[in-house]
């Protein structure tokens, strides 16, 4: 009872990684200062923080653009991916015929086809969104399909015995069974939507009012404004972490009453 704070699980969970992070930043700053490394080679955390404040305006604008594409792509991926999964479980034929193409889409390097998509789709935001959807949709399709198929065979037999229709089976049995898998897919998909949005923008290189964080990184690189580049990079990483945490939170909220993944087990 002498050090109650250190015995608090929540506190330790937050404090321990925070401490490691701060230690790392401190070490970084010290190495930069001690060796007198120029900011255009490697800026220290202090310089990056300064850039954060100075360029807050354009950074925020870039973040907004990137977030817009990410959320659009993620939403479309969830809707289309779920629809595809529902279609797949309707018949073995549909799944066998179409699933290989879902895989094909997944393994095609987005960097290679992004220029094509940017030519085909006039509006930049939508072009970037299409690229991000192509990357983000696969985990949703594969996980949800797996989930919709992972139904307790005895429960399914019981549904059949009580003469449940296809629709009842879907709503009352398959969809609830698939939820944990679906949320697993969402966790991966958010990160991929963000990566897709950034990668597509790198390829597109859109400037002007529609510039996102990726373009900011490119520009900063050309202008040797490396601290700003790092600031943009940090913002992307941070966004990814927040999105992931959001997905974990949603999935825990929904599953907390019954699924093992969301249960707090008392020992």
């Amino acid at each position, binding site marked *: 009872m002498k050090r109650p704070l250190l015995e608090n699980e929540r506190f330790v969970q937050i404090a321990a990684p925070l401490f490691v992070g701060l230690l790392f930043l401190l070490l970084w700053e010290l190495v930069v200062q001690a060796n007198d490394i120029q900011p255009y080679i490697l800026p220290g955390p202090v310089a990056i923080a300064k850039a954060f404040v100075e360029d807050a305006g354009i950074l925020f604008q870039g973040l907004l653009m990137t977030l817009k594409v990410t959320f659009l792509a993620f939403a479309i991926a969830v809707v289309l991916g779920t629809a595809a999964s529902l279609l797949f479980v309707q018949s073995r034929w549909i799944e066998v015929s179409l699933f290989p193409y879902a895989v094909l889409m997944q393994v095609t390097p987005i960097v290679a086809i992004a220029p094509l998509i940017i030519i085909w789709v006039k509006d930049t935001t939508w072009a970037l969104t299409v690229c991000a959807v192509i990357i983000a949709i696969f985990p949703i399709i594969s996980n949800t399909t797996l989930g919709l198929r992972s139904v*307790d065979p*005895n*429960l399914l*037999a*019981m*549904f*059949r*015995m*009580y*003469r*449940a229709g296809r629709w*009842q089976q879907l709503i*009352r*049995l398959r969809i*609830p069974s698939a*939820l944990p898998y679906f949320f697993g897919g969402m966790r991966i998909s958010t990160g991929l939507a963000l990566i897709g949005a950034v990668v597509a923008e790198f390829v597109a290189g859109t400037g002007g009012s529609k510039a996102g964080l990726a373009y900011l990184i490119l520009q900063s690189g050309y202008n040797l404004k490396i601290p700003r580049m790092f600031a943009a990079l940090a913002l992307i990483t941070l966004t990814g972490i927040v999105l992931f945490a959001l997905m974990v939170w949603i999935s825990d909220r929904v599953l907390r*009453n*019954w*699924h093992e993944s969301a*249960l707090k087990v008392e020992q």
Partner: protein
Amino acid sequence: MIEATASRSESAPPMAAPAATGESPVRVGRPVVDVSGVDKIYANGTIALQGADLTIRQGEFVSLLGPSGCGKSTLLRIMAGLGDVSRGTVKWWEQDYSVVGQKGRKLAFVFQNATLMPWARVRKNVRLPLDLAHERGPEAEAKIDRALAMVGLSAFGDAYPRELSGGMQMRASIARAMVTEPDLLLMDEPFGALDEMTRNKLNDDLLELWQAKGWTVVFVTHSVYEAVYLSNRVVVMAARPGRIVDDVSIDVPYPRGADFRVSTEFAAYCRQVSKSLELASRQGREVRS
């Protein structure tokens, strides 16, 4: 053994009264399920069931008893209409499967595990058969209340299955089977995973309900004691190939209390059934060698 039974019913004439009201071993009831000449051969060539002939009559409590692989669960699933047969015919109430579910011809199945929907509260699990039949309103709610009360889970309607013990989950599963007020209850080793105390308690509860409701029950088990205690007929099965080898009547009136479990009569029946099981397995070995 027959003498033992006879002497008991002579020395205890009041017992003859319940025996006359439907629990009589004399098979007079209408056939509820009729399995004749049924083979079940799986695609990999396993003969799960060979030449099964069995008639379950109205009001009977029949146990299917045998070692693993004797096809007892397969036979039960066939009776539930959950599996096709490779040969032979199955009749429900002397007709085909399409009559199952009609009034007076309702069937319910209790699985080996509770098979509850983990995402739904107990009450929602119990009401599932009604939901699937689009039954709503106060009458449906009353049925659910009754079913929960029967298994002693009235206070646990709002609990999630994982919050219940194994025995309580099984009770919820039984409540779900009973909510439709079935005429035929098929149970596949329902208490196999429970401890002996819980199992005995649930056995007694089940018998009480069976007597009160006038169900027909087919009960799969691998416990000789459970089969003898519960049933008025024990159908003995053997493995490789899965087949029915004996059909023993347990001519003891209900209710059978704890006293019956320690009676010489009970022991005698257990011995008879065990012998029948042993004989069947020995025959099986001879056939193979």
